[in-house]
């Protein structure tokens, strides 16, 4: 086989581009169950917050613990132990950051807390998307827009809005990530 430099360069470019696409789709597939999990948890969490606002603290403590535990287990099954522990550390970091920020900003009302955390998550998705694929960017921007829209335009129904639309958006985004 005798190839010119141009043919070799083109072949290498094709290889790089195909590997990139394959990696991106594999990452999307890996992330999809996590978004769907949190879509369900948000629907339950915000729904319970709407129904029993006095128990919001306990509700979200349980939701977050269940979410992190389930997500970590899924990651251990999908990948190896190192990745699983890194995932758990990442989630713990996010939780600590959110709690620390809310403590510093106190006193704030429940609605503000309920909007702040989704905005942090949305920012994380956009940052991930800048490096790993545009679908994360779209998911992050949509989540932020829905959160801000509900916060400013639906003051009395914000928790219900986040349960249905916020949770629904995460579920839909998760299904979208499974598509080729």
């Amino acid at each position, binding site marked *: 086989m005798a190839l010119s430099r141009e043919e070799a360069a083109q*072949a*290498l470019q*094709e290889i790089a581009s*195909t590997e990139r696409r*394959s990696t991106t*789709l594999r990452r999307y597939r890996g992330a999809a169950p996590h978004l769907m999990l949190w879509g369900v948890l948000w629907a339950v969490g915000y729904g319970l917050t709407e129904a029993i606002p006095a128990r919001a603290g306990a509700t979200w403590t349980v939701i977050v613990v269940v979410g992190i535990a389930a997500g970590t287990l899924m990651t251990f099954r999908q990948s190896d132990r190192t990745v699983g522990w890194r995932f758990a550390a990442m989630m713990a970091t996010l939780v600590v950051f959110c709690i620390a920020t809310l403590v510093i900003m106190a006193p704030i009302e429940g609605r503000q807390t309920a909007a702040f955390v989704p905005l942090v998550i949305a920012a994380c998705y956009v940052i991930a998307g800048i490096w790993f694929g545009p679908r994360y960017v779209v998911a992050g921007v949509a989540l932020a827009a829905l959160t801000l829209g509900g916060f400013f335009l639906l003051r009395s129904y914000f928790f219900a809005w986040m349960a249905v639309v916020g949770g629904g958006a995460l579920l839909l985004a998760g299904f979208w990530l499974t598509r*080729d």
Partner: protein
Amino acid sequence: MSRADDIIHQPVRLKIMAALNALRPGEAIEFTRLKAIVAATDGNLGAHIATLEQAAYVTVSKDFNGRKPRTRIAMTRGGRRAFAQHVAYLRDILDGDPIKEGKV
């Protein structure tokens, strides 16, 4: 060590091997997703996969996902080695190896 591989170098097969190379060792990809990545038709993709399977570069497994039949393709260790050698061969050409360019 670099080595040209005529089986791998065909455009569709090159993309198939590149797509599989991006997976973890032993990890398989579904036919439908490979088709989307490589942008080939069912028949075309199937024929090239058969060629790679005959060369023992890939393995093909068929099972059911619920009631839906599913075909998955994974690269073998030999396939990974052959692909790495072919990529090294291509890079040698870019680095100006006249033998590999067929000038000597």
